[in-house]
């Protein structure tokens, strides 16, 4: 009932705002003051966009017909600014997305997903990728009780950090990873895939001249839709027959674990009920997984930060409690082990056991820091570089852990030391980045139009590392040190009517992604843009890192009209 009232209220508000901001004269029926208010205080903007994509991967495993269509996404996003008073402003936007469920994807899912106990696989609903809630996408009231204090209340985005393309500290708001290919910021930037959350943010400028700012935020989570309190992504791929995988951007599943021709993924997390006496399929453990979404009362995210400048150095130190871990940082938690048949059959080692697991968002916290600094020259040589960095300490971050090599001839199996299949380790992640504008006259029609370049190093260090730590979705081990490099270059030609932008990432362990894009912004209309974008992936091992997406190479055409 309350939710229906919300929907009705926001739907009505949206329609009224749209009508009155486009024709303020209509507000005149409420009085001259209202007409004047809408003319002077309300502004309207937004965009409509269509993104279409096709798979270009050789011998696509996902589509065995000529239809290699991977995306046809239509978005309309109206936005309103209301200058309510000198000390109060309102911004409200709605987002409506129409994107069909792809029939090949659905058929693939029906063919490959199996549940235990056996039950019909639920098909993806037709509107699985669509978004049409009347609840505003973003609705913030900005209040400045004093010139140094800023409060933002409402459904909002809070983004910390200095990274580009990948997230490190930017884990306050969750992300929608269902529609966007990974590592493709030129296709959908972080803001387009970030999910808003209801809450409060406060910024207090203690000392303006040194940019000494105190920040505090609180997002209760209870006002958000349950599945939008955490990252949205397509569920784990089951591998009943190791054939076609479902989900456009689902990672390549773990297919190396088989026992008697059956999927032995469950053996990673639990041993059979009678490991000593089991024979054949009696040693198999079938996974039965559910996604455990955080409840309303346990979805709080709270954080605080102080930033300051000393000379050319700007830095910040902060703390986040109850962060939303990225999809790749989630863990399976073993809750119980049962039997696929009568219990006695498993106890005698003759029938497969069943491990019940929940995919959980652990409420780990983060000690956060960032800095940026400009370097003009080193030893009289012009460097002209901005350096930035981010650091995050995750105390007791949970990881799944298994035993390598495993029992029963498997590559890996459950580690009896950890009955929940989880180990907690202090983890340090950091990023160091360098930004530079460089003139390369011979590559340009305007010799003074610079190339903007940025280079980033991401690293993760797991303290007190143990052999056997692996991500929840794969048996590929995570090393003590994990490194990733990214490089981005962009510029403009012909008066910035042609805008190329290339983002690449590389893991020295042998994985890469490339996200080139070229945008045409016509000189006769600033509202239109057309972009051709590629998302390409590779790696020697398709069970790890960006190799997980090595069969998902695609190109996209994005058409956008701003109003």
């Amino acid at each position: 009932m309350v939710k229906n009232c919300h929907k009705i209220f926001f739907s009505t508000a949206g329609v009224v705002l749209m009508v009155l901001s486009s024709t303020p004269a209509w507000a005149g029926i409420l009085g001259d003051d209202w007409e004047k208010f809408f003319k002077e205080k309300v502004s309207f903007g937004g965009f409509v966009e269509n993104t279409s994509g096709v798979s270009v991967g050789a011998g696509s495993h996902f589509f065995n017909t000529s239809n290699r269509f991977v995306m046809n996404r239509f978005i309309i996003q109206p936005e309103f600014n209301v200058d309510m008073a000198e000390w109060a402003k309102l911004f409200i936007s709605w987002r409506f997305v129409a994107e069909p469920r792809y029939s090949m994807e659905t058929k693939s899912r029906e063919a490959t997903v199996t549940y235990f106990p056996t039950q019909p696989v639920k098909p993806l609903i037709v509107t699985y990728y669509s978004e049409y809630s009347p609840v505003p996408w973003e609705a913030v009231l900005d209040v400045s009780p004093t010139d140094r204090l800023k409060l933002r209340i409402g459904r909002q985005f809070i983004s910390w950090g200095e990274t580009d393309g990948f997230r490190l500290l930017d884990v306050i708001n969750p992300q929608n990873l269902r529609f966007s290919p990974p590592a493709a910021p030129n296709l959908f930037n972080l803001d387009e895939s970030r999910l808003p959350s209801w809450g409060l943010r406060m910024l207090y400028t203690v000392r303006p001249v040194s940019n000494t700012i105190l920040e505090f935020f609180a997002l209760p989570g209870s006002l958000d839709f349950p599945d939008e309190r955490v990252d949205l992504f397509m569920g784990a791929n089951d591998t009943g027959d190791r054939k076609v995988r479902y989900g456009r951007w689902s990672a390549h599943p773990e297919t190396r674990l088989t026992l008697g021709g059956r999927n032995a993924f469950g053996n990673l997390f639990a041993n059979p009920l009678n490991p000593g006496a089991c024979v054949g399929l009696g040693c198999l453990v079938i996974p039965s997984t559910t996604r455990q979404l955080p409840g309303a009362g346990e979805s709080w995210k709270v954080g605080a930060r102080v930033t300051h400048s000393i000379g050319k150095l700007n830095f910040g130190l902060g703390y986040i409690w109850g962060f939303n871990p990225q999809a790749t940082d989630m863990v399976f938690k073993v809750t119980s082990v049962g039997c696929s048949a009568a219990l006695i059959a498993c106890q005698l080692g003759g029938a497969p056991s069943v491990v019940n697991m929940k995919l959980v968002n652990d409420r780990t916290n983060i000690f956060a820091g960032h800095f940026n600094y400009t370097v003009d020259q080193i030893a009289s040589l012009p460097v002209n570089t901005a350096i930035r960095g981010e650091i995050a300490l995750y105390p007791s971050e949970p990881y799944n852990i298994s035993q390598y090599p495993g029992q029963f001839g498997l590559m890996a199996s459950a580690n009896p030391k950890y009955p929940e299949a989880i180990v907690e380790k202090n983890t340090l992640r950091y990023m160091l980045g360098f930004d530079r504008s460089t003139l390369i006259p011979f590559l340009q029609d305007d010799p003074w139009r610079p190339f903007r370049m940025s280079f980033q190093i991401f690293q993760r260090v797991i303290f007190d590392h143990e052999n056997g730590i692996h991500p929840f979705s794969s048996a590929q081990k995570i090393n003590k040190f994990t490194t990733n490099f990214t490089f981005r270059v962009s510029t403009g030609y012909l008066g910035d009517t042609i805008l190329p932008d290339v983002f690449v990432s590389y893991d020295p362990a042998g994985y890469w992604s490339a996200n080139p894009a070229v945008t045409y912004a016509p000189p006769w209309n600033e509202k239109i843009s057309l972009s051709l974008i590629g998302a390409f992936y590779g790696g020697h091992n398709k069970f790890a890192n960006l190799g997980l997406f090595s069969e998902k190479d695609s190109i996209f055409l994005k058409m956008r009209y701003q109003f």
Partner: protein
Amino acid sequence: MMKLRVNGQALLKPTAVTLSIILYGWLLLGFASVAAAAEADLKVGETIGPQNWQKIQGMVGENLLSRIKAGYTIQIKASKVYQPLKEYVEATEKYSGKVSLGANGELLNYVAGQPFPKLDPNDPQIGQKLAWNFFYRWLGDDYKTGGAVKGGKILRFAIEKDGSERRADVVSYFLFPSTRYTLNPKPAIPGYEHIDYIQLRIDSYPRDASGTTTLEIRYKDPARADDLHIYLPSIRRIRRATTTQRCQTLAPSEFNLDDINSFNGKITDFNYKYLGDKKILANISQEHLPFARKPGDYLPLDEKWEVVDTFVLEITPKDPNYCYPRKLLHLNKATFDTHWTLMWDKKGEYWKEQFGFFTPVKLADGREVWSVGDVVIVNVQNGRSTIVTATRAYNQGYPASMFSLATLQSIMRGGSIE
């Protein structure tokens, strides 16, 4: 004790009379020059066109002159005279006596006002002094560029050679925290004595650019480069940028960082040479904002031009890699604003010309001052031009806290901060 009365109010102390006479003297000379020019060559109401373009040769940029030869016409009007602001004159009187130049052209002992009100054409350092007078000309204690434009925004049009146009709207705020004349605290906000100006600039149209906000800080220290922070709405984060690449094109406009306000470089990074006085054609009483023009062209159709007395200042860079080996400013003798800026490239070829109209605006107390109106920059080599309507609203009383990184994080797409 003699007092000078303006509008019935006794404004100036006797000790300021001498200074005022010097400042007014330049104005009167200018006015006299105008009258002389009008009588000798150009008359009020006269139309200049293809038939008589020779009359104004050297008084406008070569590209505009070419357009006149090709058929464009302009009309001459009487020159406007602006009164210098009393507080600025008083500050000049109070502080200019101790100002001098350092070994590298840096300014020593400067507090506020015009650094060098007394200029000797034979002074070998006159060029440097003119440059400092230009940098510290009266610009208010703060201003909102676009604040006096209908809609409260800067309108920018980037025009291609074929006449295609793209529009962008910007809002820009300037704070001069260490040279304050009217608003308290004066002459400087405590803690900000080391900062010349802070600019907060917000893109507001088109939508994808809107919300992009920059915070730029110019320091008095000649050795310290500007700080630049940019908020990118696409990632909702602030990114740090370097400003040492002053020549980079601010595409799709034809400006670069140092073209803003005609010359925005660090004064000590350049050499200056005074080339003499010159009468030029300008418009310091623009009537229509923005001026009327044909779509796809930058020529004003409904504005008249007036003769203005200027100092001609040649600027050459100390850095041999700088984009403009030569730049000419034409500084209004009374206000030290520029009306014509001409630029050449490294081959010595004429590259860009920029002219800026000015217009009267009122302060909150009703006094009339001048503001930039429409500014046009033309790249004569690629045929592109950019027009900016940037009339200012001065002395709005912006708090220093507005010019901080907290503000960057609080701007929404299409939104405002006041």
